[in-house]
Each structure stands twice: as C-alpha cells, then as structure tokens.
C-alpha cells in the first residue's frame, strides 16, 4: 500500500520538476503573494504580519491548485496509461493518494520559499509569531483541500483545461458562498457559512485583507486554531479524494 503510494508520488514529483510547470507556478505564486505582502506592510504604521501574504495565497490558490493538479489524472487518460496503471496490481486509492501527495509536496516547497517574507518581517519588524504559525497551518490545510478539489476535477475528463476550469469553478463557488449566505437568514445562512471555503472575498480592502473576515480561514489568519476549521478542511480533502476514487472506479464500470 505505502510502497505503491510512494512509487506514484515519486514519479509525479520527478515529473513536476522535469517540466516547467512547477517552476512557473511557483514563480507566479511568489510574485502575486509578494504584491499582497508588500502592499500590506509598506504603509507607515502598518502591522508586521503575513496577513497580506495569506490573502494573496488564499486568493491565488483558487487557480493555482487546479493548475498544479490538472495534469495528474487527465493526462493519464489521454495517453491511455490509465489502462496500464489499472491493469497493474495497484489500487485506485493508491494512485489517487500518491498523486495528491506529489502535488502537496510541491505546495509545501512553495510555502517554504515564501518563508522569505516571514524572514523580512523578523528583520525589519517585531511580528507576532502566533498568527504566522497558525496562518501557515491554515494555508497547508487550505492547500490540501484545494488540491483535492483539483485532482477530482482532473479525473473527470482527459482534457486538462476542463480539469482546470472545473477545479477553479468549484473553488470559486465555495469561496463566493457568502454572496448567497448574506441574503438568507437563520439555519440556511449558518449552513451556507459552514461551507465557506476561504475568506469572504474583500481582498482588495487593504485594511482587512479579506482573510480576517468570515470563512474557515479567518481564524487561522487571526492566530486562532479551531478544531472546526481543521475538521472542515480535512473533510473537504477527504471527500474530494474519495470522490476522485469513485469517479475512477465508475469509469472502469462503463
């Protein structure tokens, strides 16, 4: 089980580094989150926090995660290698987890590179370490969930672009739930709020950088680690990985 997952993950990680994809995405990620970071800390009297970076990351990952994962299963379907994979002694679950882990590793590498921003904060200011740690924890969980959605989208067809659009579509819908939830009341509102993926999106409001309001990411940005938020991201990850396995199994039954 673990060996097979490792074999799949290892191969995919090597493919990431062998193709320009990982480098391009990483560069774009650092550039865009960099803009947000600079905007958030460069005013006089601005707070030495990574809140701007987090807002940029949460926003950009809606597109970046599906871009990272769009190839993972769609390409195997296009090349026909899925047929080889699933006539080998390997389970769908192992393939899906392996591929998920490979994208997750790339994501972690990007986050590690972004620690450069944190370093700057410590050199030029006196930041509060709590929200930085919780912010990164939140990003990792949020990243896992967005990758799982992306992998699910990639399994739907042999077309990578479809994977990208569907993945980003699902993530955008989950992010924009507040557009609906603020128009209803009572239980309906609570349920809808419960599904809010990231931050309620007022990212261009430079005072709050969105992430601090509503959604399951808000508490992480404030330095609060709540079990509910962790459970939300973990279940989202789990549900979409299971859905991916289901899609792959259903494909074979057709």
């Amino acid at each position, binding site marked *: 089980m673990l060996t097979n997952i490792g*074999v799949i993950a290892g191969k995919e990680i090597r493919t990431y580094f062998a*193709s320009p994809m990982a480098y391009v995405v990483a560069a774009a990620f650092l550039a865009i989150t960099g803009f947000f970071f600079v905007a958030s800390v460069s005013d006089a009297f601005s707070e030495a926090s990574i809140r701007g970076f987090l807002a940029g990351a949460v926003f950009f990952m809606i597109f970046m995660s599906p871009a990272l994962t769009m190839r993972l299963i769609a390409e195997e379907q296009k090349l*026909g290698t899925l047929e*080889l994979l699933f*006539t080998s002694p390997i389970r769908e679950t192992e393939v899906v987890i392996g591929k998920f882990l490979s994208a997750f590793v790339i994501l972690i590498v990007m986050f590690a590179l972004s620690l450069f921003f944190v370093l700057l904060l410590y050199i030029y200011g006196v930041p509060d370490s709590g929200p930085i740690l919780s912010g990164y924890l939140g990003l990792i969980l949020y990243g896992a969930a967005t990758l799982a959605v992306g992998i699910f989208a990639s399994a739907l067809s042999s077309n990578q672009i479809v994977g990208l659009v569907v993945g980003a579509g699902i993530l955008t819908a989950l992010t924009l739930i507040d557009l609906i939830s603020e128009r209803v009341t009572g239980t309906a509102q609570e349920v809808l709020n419960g599904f809010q993926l990231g931050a309620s999106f007022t990212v261009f409001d430079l005072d709050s950088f969105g992430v601090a309001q509503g959604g399951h990411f808000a508490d992480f940005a404030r330095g609060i680690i709540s079990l509910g938020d962790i459970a939300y991201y973990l279940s989202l990850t789990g549900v979409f990985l299971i859905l991916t396995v289901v899609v792959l199994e259903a494909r074979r039954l*057709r």
Partner: protein
Amino acid sequence: MIKLEHMSKNFGPYPAVIDVSFEVLKGEIVGFLGPNGAGKTTTMRVLTGFTPPSEGEVTVAGYNIETHSLDARRHIGYLPESVPLYLDMTVTDYLTYMGRIRGMNTAWINERLERVIDVVKLGDYRNTLVGRLSKGYRQRTGIAQAILHNPDVLIMDEPTIGIDPIQVVETRELISELGSEHTLLLSSHILPEVSMICQRVLVINDGRIVADDKPSALSSRLLHAERIELGVRDAETRQVINALRNLGMVIDARTDSRAENQQRAEAEGRLALLVDARPNQGASEEIAKTIVDNGWGLTTLNPLPLTLEEIFLQLTTEEELES
C-alpha cells in the same frame, strides 16, 4: 491459465461481448481474430481486470479477476492497443517505473531490465526519451513493459498495428519468441499474422466466438470450403472417415473434437464427425449416399452456416492491404 465462462460485457444497454467461453492453457499461443469492433479489445480489458465483466466468470492464472483482481493482475503482462507510454520519460526510467508499479524490487528490476532491453533490442535507446522514439521502437518499449515482470500470461492487443512493414516483421518474430516463455493471447484483424504466430485461433464477431480452431483448419475453410456436421450410427470411425475421404469433393473428414458435441454423440451412441468439402459439388448428397450405401445409420447431416466465411471477408486477408 486463462478461463472465461459465459462472460458477457454490456456498455449500458449495448452488448459488446456476449456469452464468451474459452480456455487458454499454459504455454499456448492463441490468436484472437476478428474485424474491428468485434469485441476483441473489450474481452482483453475484461481479462486484464481493467473493466469487470457484466456476467460470467473470468479466471487468470487461477485467480478470479473480480474477487482477486490484484493477485490476477500480478500474473498478467498487457500491451494495450494504444501502446500507452509516458513520453517525457527515458526508456529505462519508464521500464523501472512500470516495474515498481508491478511491485518489483530494485534488484529484480535491474536483473530483468537488461534482459528485457536485450530481448526487444532497445539497447541503443535505453536513455532516449520515449517521446522521441519511432512507432516501432515505442511498440518495443510497450512490449518490454509487458514482459518485464516475467508474467505467466501475456496479453497483446493488435501488437503490429500502425508500424512500418519491416518493423512489423521484426515485431512478429519477437512475439513468436515470447510465445516460448509465456502463455500468449494476442488479438489481430490480420489473418496471415495470426496464422504465422499462433497455434490456435479464436474468431470473434459481433461479440460472439464463432470459431476456435487451428490456423491451418481456418485457412482451409477460407479456401471456400463447406463444413458439414455429421452424426453416424452403427459404424467404425476409421471406416467412415476413409470412405468419406475417398469422395472427390471432400477435403478432409475427422472426428468432431468439440467437447459438447462429443458428449452428446456418446450419450446418443453415435459418432460425431466434421467434414470439409468443396462447395457447390453436392457434397451433402454424396456423403448421405455413401453412408447409407455402407449400411450405416445417418442421424445428422448439418451443413454449418457460412458465417465464418462472411467474417473473413471483413478481415484483412491480404498482407499487402495492411502494409
């Protein structure tokens, strides 16, 4: 090694393969012949565990392909028709990866890798990206991954399709050699190819097996022969066969070796025979006359339908057409 019992596969309401039963014994090289769309690929996908059968039971290397899928798959080497390869990997990397997927350890992979590369003659290309190889060499890479783990059962779907004539010849030679080490089932829509490589041919059409015979026997049927099923009582097999062979239009007469026919004949206390004869020469009448004249009892005389003939018309019988 391979056993299908009443296997059917439907895609939604459409049947792709209907009630197929056959068995491939250890060491046999069996050709799976049929026109495009006959159900060859579907049958192979069921055999390899890629897609489960809708009905019936499939056993490969002693393992049920549904209930013990992973165990069965460990014993299968498979080359799908599309020859799926990761184009951005080198030949060695690709084969190593496929070995890992099959659960081989590093020592075993290294041991087999050299041998397999040697067998398929890819030595000069071991560090070339698969995407840069010609079609023939990609085919060889595909074959290499199928035999890497030294599987008991080797299944190849149209292994010579889409490659140039010289490479076709080489690939066929390679496949023939592989037949000595593995139980081999290969599909084709080219009759001469199957005759060349296989000891036994299964003909499939519209999802049904319509013939299961030696290539030579199929070829004789292709020479516009008429096949007649015969039931004879109160006679000695040898005598009947000799008498029939003496008839001018009879190409061959022999015992019907199909198990179900044998069983029924034994139960009814008669002989079951098959006669191949030249068509349009009144074979049926002459045979009936011969048997009656000899004082034997004629219980059945059944000219078999010419469906096989029609199927062959759709097959590629001329090598030139293909290449």
